[in-house]
């Protein structure tokens, strides 16, 4: 088979089950529980089996097939009726949805205490990834995945893991609990049953020489110890990576094709912010856990360490973040100009810190940022997905960024401040690129007196001037037929518009408002944000928000 039928199958399934759409022609547009805040994991997934995603196939498919696929323009399927992503086994609303204290940010995904590094018992070689490391039990007997920094970049990869795991936790993703610790080789013993895979495919006893080989690839402290990142063993049964397209056919709760999950599309923006260039499926992980007596699959971004300017074995290559591993257009340009057709990565200026690698904010362009290989979810990102993601990035205040970066314990003079500055610079570039790109109306509210208020995210962050005017087209809305009847059109120069007379007053009545803005600088703001309010008591409850129509002829999120 090809992947296409699989995608079609998944897409058809999704068409029936999108979280926001009506479930049938006779179903109401909005249910009483809309907008939902959590996607239920109602079915038992206990029978899900481990599966692998081949590294070579994933790389080749994404480079030479996915990269050439046109985006479908399909709206994200896992958004609720107000265009937000409900909590799920994939995602938990955090930053931008509630206040996160500095302490919360510093803890991130951590729920327990760190490893007792007074003794390590090495039990296995490192199972995945290219960073030097191994699997070991600490003095208390708990299992940890230990990884080190490359010799060229002390405290870089470990710090990146610590910082990035907190950023992605705050963004809403399931993250592995990771601690910064130290490993003293004299306090490492090798379990007799520990094995290593050899080139001939055999597993044989792990030797001291194997251990020394790991240390040779790692940055050594002056005292002979090694900085390490220790990741706690995830609870549950490991099922392997998830794919960025289709659904797991053995998970009954997985009904939205992954390429249409907004939080997976949004990794294009979050990845750009943090320079998470290694977006391959192999850096994700599904685990089967038991919740309320049922098997539930939790989905993790397992390895977010290849961020900022560092990779597993040294600084990012110069073109990382600027080009895929292979691109036809740049290949032709460099081939026919003998390399004199320069690319932005060749002239970008870096302030190089060993503990950060190659990370900068001046040449960075969020619209052209690229990971090693695209994913289908990456290709499917639309402007409304990017807007949603950019809002979350902008929700990180300078102080929040400082609090998270401090957890990396970057001791190199100036490094911590530099990383903070670049993250702020890239954050603002993301906001500037994506917030004004679509109609940036946010937080609409209608009070009992008919006063419609809303925000303008682009104006709020000073990425755009206020529009000349806002216009609201008011209609009554029949929740069962979907028919709307125009009432009137009102206009205001401010983000506050009085409703016309004639709004329904009956409990449970619906009103539809199309809010647009007239801005010569931003013609896209003329595309109205369609909101629906439901009469609740003496006031109105927001039950619907659609920033862009269901289907776009082409995605408007990227250059």
């Amino acid at each position, binding site marked *: 088979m090809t992947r296409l039928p699989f995608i079609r199958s998944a897409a058809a399934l999704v068409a029936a089950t999108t979280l926001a759409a009506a*479930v049938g022609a006779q179903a109401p547009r909005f*249910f009483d529980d809309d907008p939902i805040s959590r996607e239920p994991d109602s*079915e038992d997934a206990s029978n899900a089996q481990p599966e692998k995603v081949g*590294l*070579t196939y994933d790389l*080749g498919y994404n480079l030479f097939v996915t990269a050439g696929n046109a985006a479908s323009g399909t709206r994200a399927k896992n958004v609720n009726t107000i265009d937000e992503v409900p909590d799920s086994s994939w995602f938990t609303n955090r930053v931008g949805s509630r206040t996160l204290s500095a302490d919360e940010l510093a803890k991130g995904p951590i729920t327990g205490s760190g490893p007792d590094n007074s003794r390590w018992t090495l039990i296995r070689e490192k199972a995945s990834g290219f960073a030097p490391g191994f699997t070991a039990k600490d003095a208390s007997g708990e299992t940890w995945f230990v990884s080190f920094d490359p010799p060229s970049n002390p405290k870089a990869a470990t710090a990146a893991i610590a910082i990035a795991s907190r950023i992605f936790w705050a963004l809403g993703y399931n993250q592995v609990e990771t601690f910064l610790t130290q490993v003293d080789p004299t306090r490492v013993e090798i379990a007799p049953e520990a094995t290593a895979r050899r080139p001939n495919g055999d597993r044989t006893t792990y030797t001291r020489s194997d251990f020394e080989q790991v240390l040779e690839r790692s940055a050594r402290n002056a005292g002979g110890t090694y900085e390490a990142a220790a990741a706690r063993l995830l609870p549950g049964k490991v099922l392997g990576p998830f794919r960025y397209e289709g659904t797991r056919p053995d998970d009954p709760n997985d009904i939205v094709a992954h390429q249409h999950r907004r939080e997976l599309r949004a990794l294009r923006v979050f990845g750009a912010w943090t320079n998470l260039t290694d977006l391959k499926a192999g850096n994700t992980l599904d685990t089967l856990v038991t919740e309320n007596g049922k098997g539930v699959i939790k989905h993790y971004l397992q390895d977010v360490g290849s961020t900022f300017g560092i990779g597993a074995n040294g600084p990012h290559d110069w073109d990382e973040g600027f080009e895929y591993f292979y691109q036809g257009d740049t290949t032709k340009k460099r*081939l026919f100009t003998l390399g004199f057709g320069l690319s932005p990565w060749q002239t970008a200026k870096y302030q190089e810190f060993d503990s950060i690698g190659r990370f900068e904010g001046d040449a960075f362009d969020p619209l052209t940022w690229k990971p090693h290989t695209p994913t289908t979810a990456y290709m499917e990102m639309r402007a409304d997905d990017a807007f949603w993601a950019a809002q979350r990035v902008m929700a990180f205040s300078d102080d929040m960024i400082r609090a998270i970066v401090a957890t990396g314990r970057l001791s190199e003079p100036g490094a911590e401040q530099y990383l903070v500055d670049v993250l702020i610079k890239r954050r603002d570039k993301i906001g500037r690129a994506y917030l004004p790109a679509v109609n940036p109306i946010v937080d609409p509210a209608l009070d009992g007196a008919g006063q419609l208020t809303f925000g303008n995210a682009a104006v709020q962050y000073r990425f755009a001037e206020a529009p000349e005017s806002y216009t609201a087209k008011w209609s009554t809305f029949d929740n069962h037929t979907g028919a709307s009847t125009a009432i009137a059109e009102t206009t205001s120069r401010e983000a506050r518009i009085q409703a016309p007379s004639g709004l329904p007053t009956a409990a449970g009545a619906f009103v539809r408002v199309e809010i647009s803005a007239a801005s010569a600088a931003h013609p896209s703001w003329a595309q109205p944000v369609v909101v629906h309010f439901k009469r609740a008591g003496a006031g109105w409850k927001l039950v619907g928000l659609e920033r862009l129509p269901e289907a776009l002829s082409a995605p408007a999120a990227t250059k």
Partner: protein
Amino acid sequence: MTRSYLHTRWWLGLALSGVVAAALPASAQTPQSRDEALRQAKAEKAKALAPYVPSKGEQWVDRIENTFLDGDLRWHPYFQSALAGGGFTLGAGYRFFVSPYNTVDLRGSYTLSGYKRLEAEFLAPRLFDRRGRLSLVGGWREATQVGFFGIGTDPTSKDDRVNYSFTQPYVSAQLDVWPTRRYFVVGGGIEYSKWDQEGSSREPSVEDVYTPATLQGLDSDPTYLHVQGSAGFDWRTAPGYTRRGGAYGVTVHDYSDRDGDFGFRQVDYDAVQHFPILRDAWVLSLHARAETTYDSGDQQVPFFMLPALGGGSSLRGFSSWRFRDRHSILLQAEWRVLVNRFLDVAVFADAGKVVSRTKDLNFDRLKNDYGLGFRFHGPLATPLRIELAHSNEGLVIVFSSKAPF
């Protein structure tokens, strides 16, 4: 995933919306809330769960990947001909592990010119706690039409070509040691081989033009015990493909002829340096090599063992073995252009000469060529190099399975 299963899924997907919608008016299945609608959809999917089945393409690629990882990749292409200049080479090898790291490789090749090579190699890459590498080789090769253009640089012409052939059984051992596990390497080797040199079926054959009196070593069948030692520094990322670093080394050879007629000594000096420019957009790669031979007593260096220039890894715009003499000097420069992670283009120039006296190893009257090359590479190796080289003797197309230097 089977096709029928796919179709089932496809129709299930299409039908699902209808099922929910049709049931809405009165059925107990009519969802009363978004949460319930989602639960129904998930319950519907739960009726048709199945394990993920990879596509044929995915299975095929995964099988290859696993073959590499499991050490099960036994057959491999082999493009090393019996001798340079044999033309397009086809060959195959069968490599298998005899221990977790050590391998035996049985391989052979054949060229359009009829060159043949058959050999077996035992390779132990991790001796002395990952500080040593041992290679034991036994084999036989035949080259049927090796070019000989005369001795020296200027007095010879490409029109002077005569041909000879040889067969050679050989056994050898080579041990390389990295005392610090990287950068500094010392090596030692020993080879026992018997040369059986004859005329060629390709006209003109060497004996048509030369006699043993006019060409040292003609019709000789020396049996050599070849001992060599080398020392060098190598900080390239990989010898097969690199964009930075350098390699500097000296190798001393002693060829001892069992009959005492054609023994000699040889010293090779080799220097490679790569300069990345503008973040690897370009790499300026330089290579210099000098080979000098010394008589062993009153013995002579046979013509077919003289240092030579010409061919795909030295003077690329000239025929293989175009220039031969007691000593040689070769200078190569390349402007390598990073096109993408898998392809480099290079503009190159080569210069060199062969001389009979070491004092003539200078930069005067060098033969030179220039050209354009395409290198398909990975991070560690260059499996295909295609080059077009031009000299005053014409245009040469080079196909090779390794980097030029």
